[in-house]
């Protein structure tokens, strides 16, 4: 923690439990949501007699959460700046039908018998479509000053129309060999272990590097034991995950893709000017402007980023379901918004984390999977999800007040 500038402030205690307590209090929001997740998991594990935790089910659960997670990550940035994007579900849907269309109708004529190149081109085109749409919406929002709610609401209608135009109301298959691997593939177990090893080494390296750098700047170092415990805990989490999914078919490619994306985005949100500016704009637009921040540019870039992530989500979606349909991506924007908010993103702007959104998204997909396993009717699934959303946010408000 920072050096105290107040002579009379109590000396920060360096006892392990005291620091753990401090850390817990300062991150209460994240912990509330993680506790909620664990509670939900235990509940389902009990109700399904452990079937919820089988390797196969865990593997599917994580695979299933990827599409909305990409959207939720982007949504964090959008909501943090005080905006909203209602078009992301339909945009992902549109990207998925475009990718399907090219596979079904174009590549076999243009580049027959080149499935790898066809898959790569499908990805490029899909992501490109997402980015382009983000550029368009971002331009209207940032430079023409039309509120994001309206622009993206309009965008949702437009995309719905475009989806119908491309599909002509029919379902288009998207099951080319390489393309399918994007969301349905698994890494061989050994590759999973190598990745786990790399992550663990990185975690430790990062811990020591940041301690060194803090020491170089003459800051007080926090308790080494505590940092070790935290690092070891996360390492075990990664190792445990890899071990468990390896019991089934290995680390899922879309989950790997999501993890990499999330890490990049988390890094951007904390360690780059772009990220900082997003939070400042959402926190106090006027103060941000007077600090010399180019607000239009920031918002423009954020919608492009949202477009990019919608593009990725669309590709994963097409690969996951294996076809593009008129209903593709329907309602995903709401799942994404709910995930972000569950994860602690403030609808008032200025607050939110990528990590939180991932946990939020994991809660949403845990609910879906768990309730399906219990054969709960879809109607009741909606009721439960809605209730959990409001309850979770209330719990958060409650804990904050009674800290």
């Amino acid at each position, binding site marked *: 923690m920072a050096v105290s500038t*107040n002579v009379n402030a109590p000396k920060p205690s360096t006892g392990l439990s005291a620091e753990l307590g401090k850390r817990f209090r300062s991150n209460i929001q994240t912990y509330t949501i993680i506790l909620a997740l664990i509670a939900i998991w235990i509940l389902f594990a009990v109700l399904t007699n452990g079937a919820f935790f089988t390797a196969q089910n865990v593997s599917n659960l994580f695979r299933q959460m990827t599409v909305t997670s990409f959207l939720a990550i982007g949504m964090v940035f959008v909501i943090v700046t005080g905006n909203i994007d209602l078009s992301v579900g339909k945009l992902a849907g549109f990207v998925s039908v475009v990718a399907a269309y090219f596979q079904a109708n174009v590549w076999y004529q243009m580049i027959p018998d080149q499935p790898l190149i066809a898959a790569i081109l499908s990805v490029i085109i899909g992501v490109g479509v997402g980015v382009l749409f983000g550029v368009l919406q971002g331009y209207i929002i940032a430079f023409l000053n039309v509120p994001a709610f309206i622009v993206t609401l309009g965008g949702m209608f437009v995309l719905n129309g475009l989806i119908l135009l491309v599909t002509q109301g029919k379902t288009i298959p998207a099951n080319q060999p390489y393309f399918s691997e994007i969301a349905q593939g698994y890494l061989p177990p050994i590759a999973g272990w190598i990745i786990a090893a790399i992550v663990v080494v990185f975690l430790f390296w990062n811990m020591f590097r940041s301690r060194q750098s803090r020491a170089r700047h003459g800051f007080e170092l926090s308790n080494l034991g505590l940092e070790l415990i935290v690092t070891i805990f996360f390492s075990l989490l990664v190792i445990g995950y890899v071990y468990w999914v390896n019991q089934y078919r290995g680390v899922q490619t879309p989950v790997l893709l999501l993890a990499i994306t999330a890490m990049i985005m988390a890094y951007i949100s904390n360690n780059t000017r772009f990220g900082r500016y997003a939070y400042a704009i959402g926190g106090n637009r006027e103060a941000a402007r007077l600090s010399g921040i180019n607000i239009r540019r920031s918002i423009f870039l954020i919608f492009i980023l949202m477009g990019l992530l919608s593009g990725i989500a669309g590709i994963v979606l097409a690969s996951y379901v294996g076809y593009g349909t008129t209903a593709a991506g329907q309602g995903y924007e709401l799942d994404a918004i709910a995930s972000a908010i569950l994860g602690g993103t403030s609808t008032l702007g*200025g607050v939110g984390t990528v990590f939180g959104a991932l946990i939020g998204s994991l809660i949403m997909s845990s609910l879906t999977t768990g309730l399906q396993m219990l054969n709960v009717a879809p109607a009741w699934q909606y009721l439960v999800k809605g209730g959990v959303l409001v309850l979770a946010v209330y719990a958060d408000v409650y804990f904050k007040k009674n800290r």
Partner: protein
Amino acid sequence: MSEDIILDIRNVTKRFPGVTALDNVSIQIRRGEIHGLCGENGAGKSTLMKILSGVYPHGDYEGTIIYDGKELNLGVGAIRQAREEGIAIVYQELTLVPNMTVGENVFLGKEPVERGAIDWNKLYADTRDILAKYRLEVSPQSVVKYLGVGKMQMVEIAKALSENAKILILDEPTSALTESEIDKLMEILENLRSHGVTCIYITHKLEEFFRITDSVTILRDGRTVATLPTRELTQEKLVSYMVGREMKERFPRSHRKPGEVIFEVNDLHAVDPNETNRKVLNGVTFNLRRGEILGIAGLMGSGRTELVTTIFGEYGKITRGSIKLEGEEIHVSDARDAMHKGISLVPEDRKGQGLVLMQSILKNISLANLDQFSGFMRIDGDAELAAATQQARALAVKAPNLQVRVDSLSGGNQQKVVIAKWLLTNPKILIMDDPTRGIDVGAKYEIYKLMNDLAERGVSIIMISSELEEVLGMSDRIMVMHEGRSTRTLEIAEATQERIMALATGIADELVAA
């Protein structure tokens, strides 16, 4: 006891995570007196007042408060309850709803109702009466956000007065008021005192204690140092009680020699960008030398803030005249551009323009300076923290660490964060719009020293201040504005309070021909 004690605060302690804001505080307040409360930034003054007004209800603090003979026990709906018990407060920070009218604000939460619907006519008529009673020249129908800060503050006071309170709490009511508005407030307070209303009065302008209060309690680091009748106090004594040591002088004087002229404003005319037929500047001419502190004096509404925000590219639309930096004419398009050219502005309104309240001290200090700490992509978090720590130290920001949110700081410490942020930008020209508002005497002194240091290092400073003493104490020259125009620029040797006031009010016929 023979004395009639209306409020007996006994051993009150209030803790926040990491800070003990009030530590066993005891104060007795007599019925009908004006009781001053004095202390450094973060001493706990506002916190104590928030306990009285129910922001922190019973159970949120330790100790007892006896109000009017019985224990003050504010529970659910504490704020409303306090109001009904006759405790009215004007908070340190403005709490008006900007998009509502004056009338709506005054009656917010207690709107007159006629058969289930708000009786607007009564609401506006009552507002008009209240405003008239205290001779406040504001229309009940005007929307609050278009009023200046001073007017807003007066509306806030009117709102509190409309409650028919037994105790009126004023937390730094004058920090945004002009001299004449302060005079008006003093009159109102004397009038209330003669009607038996008790008043608790907080300010950092020490002379006001001597002007209006009957007794003063001094708080230091959350503890009561002393309660004394005002007539037994002197400014020096008050200061030494507050800061715990003697302070010889209020303004450090440095012997510097300003260099050549680096910034010139010539016959600047500008209009309000939203209403282009409203003129805000009608001919401002002045220059600024390297390493000089130029004070800008003037009444509220004389265009001082408009002038500096126009220079900063953030407000007025320039219709005539020129601005030259180092001999070359410049056109500043916005804040970003201004900063690129080496001009920084410490804005007037810390909450609205200076700070991102929900973020940490660290992030606020570095916000305008991230380029310094960034490579192509990455922000060097440690370099950032080191620089921010240094600034926070230099300004004695009182906080457990730099990760705490700025909205948990006392008002004066928030202001220090704003100043720290802008000092870090390393400007050639630093414009400060009322930089020491709400800051205690000790910290002011530190800021003045920093300003002197900067000037000695060749930074040119433009300082707006509503406190004439401060302008006189710190400036090398003083430019006086009157109705959007610059009048004479006085050398410090020839400047006196009277002369500045004469120019500012337009009595003196010293206007420089444009």
